[in-house]
């Protein structure tokens, strides 16, 4: 407490202009920046998977299960970021028991559960059900029991049953697409519906969140596919990778257009909040916005990926570009979330001044905690890839 108070006095001395006295401390820090980032990756990865399943883009086949399992790994970790942020985390259950229908945040409980259980888990189960039955027969001992439980006690893998699995999976994915949009879109609405904060309050916020989510999800799968193939020492299906690169390029253009539209509109209308926001963007957010979000996260990837659409390049060159742009995009989208969440709290709602944000290292809201939440999904993914290996799926006879 003492240290915390000391920290606040320090921040008080660095206030620029005038802020309302209660605004000295940012309520939402890096952990809250992480939540939209993680759910965005979930939604984006799922949309990529649905391109294969619903839109029948078969060339994306090699990444289908990888995308689903990645989505699941990140979805499992996402609520921990929220719970660790709460002032009273032991009361987190209240959001499920008495959700306030007027609050966008209350949607979390039900959308999350719906998406986790009815969409993602169901789709993965239907896709792997046949394999569970086969693996249950092949394995011995403990693992045999695990697969038996996963098959939920059903052992029918006749062609008719498998066709039904496929049909059901198709329907679930179809429902899953708007569900994914809702899962991440509501987060955008959480910010977009706050009229008190002009940096957040825009109709485009849920839309921007969804499109940047798709960008980040596609980039993640692109990078993961390359990394997993490298670890397994298998050849990458370049047709698949090229297609992912293509979709990433298109999504980047859409996302960039939407974000630019938001800013151009804001600059053109120049209403009450414009002066302070102008100072915000050119001051405290200069590096994270122009440097990381726009240049690193969008402009350079768009140029690189765009060049690949026009010019033919050798496989090695293409792989290098995909890996580097994928990583750049992932960093850029993280900073997009940063600029929204942190940026929105740096200026006073009276529009007369700025507070400041110093990222702590330790503590439940610190950088180390954020790193833990970022690494955990990859560990879970590694486990899932071991338990449900996509490449060991038994092909139909």
């Amino acid at each position, binding site marked *: 407490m003492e240290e915390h108070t000391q920290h606040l006095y320090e921040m008080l001395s660095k206030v620029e202009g005038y802020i309302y006295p209660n605004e000295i401390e940012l309520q939402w820090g890096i952990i809250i920046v992480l939540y939209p980032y993680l759910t965005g990756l979930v939604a984006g990865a799922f949309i990529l998977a649905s391109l294969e399943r619903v839109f029948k883009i078969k060339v994306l086949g090699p990444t289908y299960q990888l995308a689903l399992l990645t989505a699941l790994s990140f979805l499992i970790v996402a609520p921990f970021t929220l719970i660790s942020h709460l002032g009273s985390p032991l009361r987190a*259950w209240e959001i*499920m*028991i*008495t959700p*306030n*229908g*007027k609050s966008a945040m209350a949607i979390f409980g039900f959308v999350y559960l719906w998406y986790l*259980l*009815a969409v993602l888990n*169901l789709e993965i189960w*239907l896709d792997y*059900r046949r394999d569970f039955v086969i693996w249950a027969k092949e394995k011995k001992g403990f693992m045999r029991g695990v697969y038996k439980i996963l098959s*939920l*006690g*059903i052992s*029918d893998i006749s062609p008719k*049953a498998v066709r*039904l*699995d496929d049909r*059901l999976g198709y329907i679930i994915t179809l429902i899953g697409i708007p569900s994914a949009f809702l899962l991440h879109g509501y987060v955008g609405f959480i910010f977009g519906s706050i009229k008190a904060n002009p940096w957040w309050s825009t109709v485009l916020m849920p839309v921007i969140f969804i499109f940047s989510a798709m960008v980040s999800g596609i980039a993640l799968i692109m990078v993961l596919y390359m990394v997993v193939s490298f670890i397994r020492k298998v050849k990458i299906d370049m047709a698949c990778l090229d297609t992912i690169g293509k979709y990433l390029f298109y999504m980047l253009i859409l996302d960039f257009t939407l974000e630019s539209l938001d800013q151009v509109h804001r600059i053109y209308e120049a209403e009450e909040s414009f002066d302070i926001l102008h100072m915000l963007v050119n001051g405290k957010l200069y590096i994270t916005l122009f440097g990381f979000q726009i240049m690193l996260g969008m402009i350079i990837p768009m140029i690189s990926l765009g060049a690949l659409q026009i010019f033919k390049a050798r496989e090695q060159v293409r792989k290098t570009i995909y890996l580097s742009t994928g990583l750049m995009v992932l960093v850029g989208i993280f900073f997009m979330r940063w600029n929204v969440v942190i940026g929105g709290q740096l200026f006073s709602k009276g529009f007369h001044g700025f507070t400041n944000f110093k990222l702590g290292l330790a503590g439940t809201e610190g950088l180390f905690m954020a790193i833990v939440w970022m690494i955990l999904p990859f560990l879970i993914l590694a486990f899932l890839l071991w338990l449900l290996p996509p490449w060991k799926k038994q092909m139909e006879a």
Partner: protein
Amino acid sequence: MPAQINRILLLFFAFIGLFLIVRHFLIPESFGQYGHYRGDSLIENAEKDKIFADAQDCHACHSDILEKLENEMHAGLSCLICHGPGRTHVEDPQLGNIAKESGMEFCGKCHDIHPARRGDVVFQVDISTHHTEKTDCIECHNPHALWEGME
């Protein structure tokens, strides 16, 4: 019905059923009484401890001071401004268990000259130059009878 659909529906309804049962036990009793909140909270908020007394409490015993103040510029001010919350004294009236703030700094909080204070709202003095040989305003000004003993 095919086995998969059977199993899925079973799990689905079991989950919902379990959720509803748990919810029934967890939802606070008075929730929803007046709106989407715990009705008991309204009562809890209304029954929090009061720290400041009420100026009426002072008038019950100290009506003589009230009379003295009647024609003064300090008339109408709540006693609690200078005498603090006064709760202890009201509950157990004794000599000395009530605050009696005074001093240039304290009286200056209202009366020190300041450009943002309107002259017709409060009487202002520059406390940095006003009778600097004295240490406390009450040496000359009785707060309940401001000009007592002056020409």
